[in-house]
């Protein structure tokens, strides 16, 4: 039982870390890509949309080759560590969040910029208004990323190595149990994974409601 709790905590720890790191950079980039009219932004949008569908194993093998002892970052000895898992998950989640954020901006952009211009609102405050306007969409984008991180198997197996007491997370534990024929344990772990995703989502939504005092929500 203690081991299962450890596995669950490891899952939460790596996924929350990777989602947080990815979101810190992906949300601003997504907003920028949505607002900007520059040619680069226009070109980058489809790039991120397709990267959102990047096969996770590709992220896995990339991080594996980078972190492996024979790879360029080998001397840091990060392969088969939680850091390796987090890195791979960031790579998977980052484009997903960017690709979910920029489309939020597009439909309201014209009206938003016009209003800001009309009311003569300074740039800094514009950003704050924009975030407030898009809060539900942003929340959903980040939660989508978190769900994706929690659910990842292949890449996590490659770079984490499924080491007991260290890098074994819920999904890789499920694979292991299935391979060993312990289907009921695998299923219980799967249900636990689902319940945890539910509770994290629920927790975030209710906190959000409390913080925002929003009658619409």
């Amino acid at each position: 039982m203690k081991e299962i709790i450890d596995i669950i905590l490891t899952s939460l720890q790596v996924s929350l870390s990777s989602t947080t790191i990815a979101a810190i950079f992906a949300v601003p980039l997504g907003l920028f890509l949505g607002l900007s009219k520059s040619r680069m932004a226009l070109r980058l949008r489809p790039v991120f949309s397709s990267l959102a569908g990047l096969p996770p194993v590709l992220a896995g093998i990339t991080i594996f080759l980078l972190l492996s002892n024979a790879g360029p970052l080998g001397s840091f000895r990060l392969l088969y560590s939680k850091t390796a898992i987090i890195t791979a998950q960031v790579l998977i989640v980052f484009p997903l969040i960017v690709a979910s954020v920029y489309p939020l901006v597009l439909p309201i952009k014209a009206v938003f910029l016009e209003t800001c211009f009309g009311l003569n609102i300074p740039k800094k405050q514009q950003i704050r208004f924009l975030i407030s306007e898009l809060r539900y969409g942003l929340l959903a984008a980040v939660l989508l990323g978190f769900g994706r991180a929690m659910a990842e198997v292949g890449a996590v197996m490659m770079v984490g190595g499924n080491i007991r007491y260290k890098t074994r997370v819920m999904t890789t534990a499920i694979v292991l149990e299935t391979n060993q024929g312990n289907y009921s344990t695998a299923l219980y772990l799967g249900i636990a994974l689902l319940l945890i995703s539910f509770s994290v989502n629920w927790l975030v939504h209710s906190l959000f409601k409390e913080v925002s005092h929003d009658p619409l929500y």
Partner: protein
Amino acid sequence: MKKLFIGIIVSLMLLSGCKSENEQPKTLRLTTTTSVNDSGLLEYLRPYILEEANINLEIVSLGSGAALEAGKRGDADVLLVHSPAAEKTFVDEGYGIKRSTFMYNFFVIVGPSGDPVQIKDLSAADAFKKIESAKSPFISRGDKSGTHSKEKAIWKLAGLDAEVVSADTSFYVSAGSGMGATLTMASEKQAYTLTDLATFLSMKDKLSLKVIVSESPDLKNDYSIIVINPDKVANVDVETAKAFERWMLSEKALKLIAEYGKETYGETLFFTE
């Protein structure tokens, strides 16, 4: 409430950091084959290794081919594998200091309880010949593991070309996965497969398969420890690896290994010399 939430995230992030500080034993990156790992042997030895050699094992389980590759890349300090031919090349090329073969057991051919092509009491090579000519379903690991290379060696003994056989999809299924998954597939498809006894026994209750051929001399399975050579591969912990090897070859360890499995399965899973 917001602070609490941030607190939860931060404390979860820090959790692992706190834990690892308490561990003074040397950490050793051991890469082993799926068959050893699935048998539970290392988990059984782990507390002894921790107490007597002060080594905390970090076990990654891969097929022997991938395990040797991990050794070459320096992603492991020590290997515990069973793929003699590939191991010899590995050591000859200078990646490993030496091979210490310290335990063995027997592969077995398992299949549907009715033994549809009647291979019981045959040698492994003859059994393979019969399976091939009857085109009776056969599941292969197909993952360059030690078991897979043993299988290829048996096809050769049977006078058949493993390449040609494996291309015959009318009966040959290359699973590309570990022993457990391959056994499950064999059970689902009611097919023959080659397996190590330890993994099979540990899963027997969940499989509708029986041991058909065992203890044929061509089924012997040697396990070796290989310490990675620090002169050839950078960043490996050779001291701890050697300490692990010394402990595994000690009389006490060999005795513990020879006793493993008797209680749970009523059979010895690994023999020592």
